[in-house]
């Protein structure tokens, strides 16, 4: 407030990391029951794997084991698919669609009632901040069940002039970044459309899916309608390759997506794949810069960057690059990295040791490619897997760290000069899942969003999700759409009005 002595330019810095600071605010865990071991959920009951084999799931923030989980082999997968087939033929497909809807509403309500327990478990098992599991993962999971419950008895209206038929048994394999939410994305439309399901959660994060199995059982779903088998890649492969599966839905890496595509080639199995991404977040000079900074942070640091639609390539118009990067770095200084259970944590633990190694390898690659690495000073816990929020500057489209998906809190920064250049660079990637545009000019935003080839584009916001909105990729980001009306189609066969399934639509 002293008019006589302005701070010299070189010393104009904000003291963002000292002074008054927040005390630890840990979320309580007393209300949560985690069993020491979990079985496979097949035909309405939990059972050990036929081999008796198990694996550990750990808390990535402490490296302490949380539970032993049954490892499903080929025989177990076969039992699950047979249970699903039986339930499909005897109960679920014949059931009145409105009644199927009632079961889904019931699951949605129980998810809400047990939201706190599920959020804490998701955070313990996966490392994501409790703030996110409480405000995003669990409410969205419930919202998906509510949304698709509503469609269950209205499928003929969803596709006017067609008759909708269920497919049969769906094999669903989901990733570790949003374990419960991805289970909801997969289960809700499949069940609403009259299919039964065998779901395989990721091996590092099986617990909320198993909790969901308890909820499914407690909600009184007929036995065998939902089956959950736990294990790693081999379990998933056995499930996808099972000959009595009618439909495969996979969310995960592009590499595994390719393997699945090969394995279903030449079969009658339908498939949807939701794979990797390397989204461009384009900031134009007329954008609201402070809000763009917030969107960039939300785009890449949400869930430690373990998000397939993360805005991992930042493109800034050169005329505002200095200002924006200065503000972005200041904002990164205020991000709190640490215990995921702390309510004030912004960036939690990296999901697994393997993923942390992947991220570190990419940071080395970036350094080798001449990237300038910026990480704010932050104290990381002694145990667990951690990566501070990271910027890679001085990189270009030819850099591996720009072309390849890192799946961590790492943002590659580039500049551009014109709208055309921005669009070209945004599309200059094997992926096409998502993207963002920041501009105060509506016409510019519409032009860019219509020319960037990606399944989801956000204008002046990022990472907003809603069950009514379809989600999915172009190019190597996948096949098919999930969510919204579009998310019903992959789980249905559409025929001419009144014609039975199996007739040409």
């Amino acid at each position, binding site marked *: *407030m002293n008019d006589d002595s302005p701070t010299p330019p070189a010393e104009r810095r904000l003291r963002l990391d000292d002074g008054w600071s927040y005390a630890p605010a840990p979320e309580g865990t007393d209300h949560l029951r985690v069993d020491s071991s979990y079985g496979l959920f097949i035909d309405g009951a939990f059972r050990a794997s036929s081999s008796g084999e198990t694996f550990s799931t750990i808390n990535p923030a402490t490296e302490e084991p949380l539970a032993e989980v049954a490892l499903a082999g080929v025989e177990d997968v076969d039992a699950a698919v047979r249970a699903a087939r039986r339930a499909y033929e005897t109960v679920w497909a014949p059931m009145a669609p409105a009644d199927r809807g009632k079961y889904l509403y019931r699951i949605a309500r129980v998810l809400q009632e047990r939201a706190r327990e599920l959020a804490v478990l998701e955070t313990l098992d996966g490392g994501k901040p409790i703030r996110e599991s409480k405000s995003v993962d669990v409410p969205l999971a419930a919202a998906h069940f509510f949304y698709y419950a509503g469609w269950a008895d209205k499928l003929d209206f969803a596709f006017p002039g067609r008759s909708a038929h269920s497919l049969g048994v769906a094999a669903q394999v989901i990733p570790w970044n949003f374990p419960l939410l991805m289970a909801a994305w997969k289960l809700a439309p499949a069940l609403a459309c009259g299919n039964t399901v065998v779901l395989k959660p990721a091996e590092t994060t099986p617990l909320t899916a198993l909790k969901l199995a308890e909820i499914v059982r407690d909600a009184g779903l007929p036995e065998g309608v939902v089956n959950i088998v736990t294990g790693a890649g081999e379990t998933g492969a056995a499930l996808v390759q099972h000959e009595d599966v009618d439909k495969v839905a996979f969310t995960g890496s592009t590499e595994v997506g390719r393997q699945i595509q090969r394995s279903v080639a030449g079969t009658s199995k339908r498939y949807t794949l939701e794979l990797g991404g390397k989204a461009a977040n384009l900031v134009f000079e007329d954008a609201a810069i402070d809000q763009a900074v917030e969107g960039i942070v939300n785009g890449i640091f949400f869930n430690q960057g373990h998000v397939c639609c993360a805005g991992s390539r930042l493109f800034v118009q050169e005329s505002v690059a200095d200002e924006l990067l200065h503000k972005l770095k200041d904002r990164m200084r205020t991000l709190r990295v640490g215990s995921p259970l702390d309510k004030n944590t912004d960036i939690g633990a990296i999901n697994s040791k393997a993923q942390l190694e992947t991220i570190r390898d990419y940071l080395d690659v970036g350094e080798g490619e001449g990237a300038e690495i910026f990480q704010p000073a932050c104290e990381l816990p002694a145990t667990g897997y951690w990566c501070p929020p990271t910027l890679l500057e001085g990189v270009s489209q030819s850099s591996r760290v720009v072309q390849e998906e890192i799946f961590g809190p790492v943002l590659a920064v580039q500049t551009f000069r014109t709208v055309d250049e921005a669009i070209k660079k945004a599309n200059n990637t094997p992926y096409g899942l998502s993207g963002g545009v920041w501009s105060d000019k509506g016409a510019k935003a519409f032009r860019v969003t219509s020319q960037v080839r990606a399944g989801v584009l956000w204008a002046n*916001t990022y990472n907003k999700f809603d069950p009514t909105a379809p989600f999915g990729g172009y190019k190597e980001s996948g096949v098919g759409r999930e969510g919204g009306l579009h998310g019903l189609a992959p789980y249905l066969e559409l025929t001419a009005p009144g014609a039975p399934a199996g007739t040409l639509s």
Partner: protein
Amino acid sequence: MTVSDRPAAPPSPPIDEVGVNDRVARFTSRSIKKEAKVEALRLALSMVDLTTLEGADTEGKVVQLCNKAKAPHAVLPDLPRVAAVCVYPTLVHVARAELEGTGIHIASVATGFPAGQVPLEAKLTDTRTAVEAGADEIDMVISRGDFLAGRYDAVAEEIRTVKEACGDAHLKVILETGELGSLDAVRRASDIALYAGGDFIKTSTGKVQPAATLPVTLVMLEAIRDFYFATGLKAGMKPAGGISKSKLALQYLVMVKETLGSDWLHPDLFRFGASSLANDLLMQLTKQATGIYPSPDDFSLD
């Protein structure tokens, strides 16, 4: 740097309301507990401008308010004092007599508060009267009429003139954001006020709804930050009106900490324009000290 040396205000950047609300949601989800809470409650108390701005204000009322400013709550002896007492110009002499030697600032509203619809000469007389009677802080209102009619230069020129009339007194410029209509306008008014010589920018008179809100305050804090980066000058912020609960006050402090940093977590650069907030802060401090929530009747209503 004198006011006349300050550069002209640059074009104001666009503000995206959705993004501002997203950012605010991050502040309000911060959890402030234990020693961090006690520290923040004390800090907030030290930032309060105890205010009485009623047509019914009397000397007796101002004396009582000053007594509260000096000793807010006898049960907790080592409390920080409040930052200032804020009154109408005609009552500044009373506050001055009461607060002599305490270090508590005397703020006075001026320039035809709250509407500002009086001639410039009256505004300047108002200001000079308050300063001569002993006010060391002047809370002026901008001419919203000029602003909304697009006469931004007139708004700036008036602020410059009032600043000169203030002499050594600090100038807080009230934007009356509840009448400006958009966050873009809030940002523009903030830039005008900062570059025209305001030492503080302030949201509201308290006579118009909505008064201070978190999104409006965030936009103003960002204007202060950009002004600091451009000029090296640290201007202060005063949200006023509608902040009566400690929890909300703490959310404001979180916002200041994460937007401007700890230099601004000081009564020289951040104030709360509030009268009922003080009692809630005292109640929360008592709870933290004793573990028991006291009755509202335990706190003075001056």
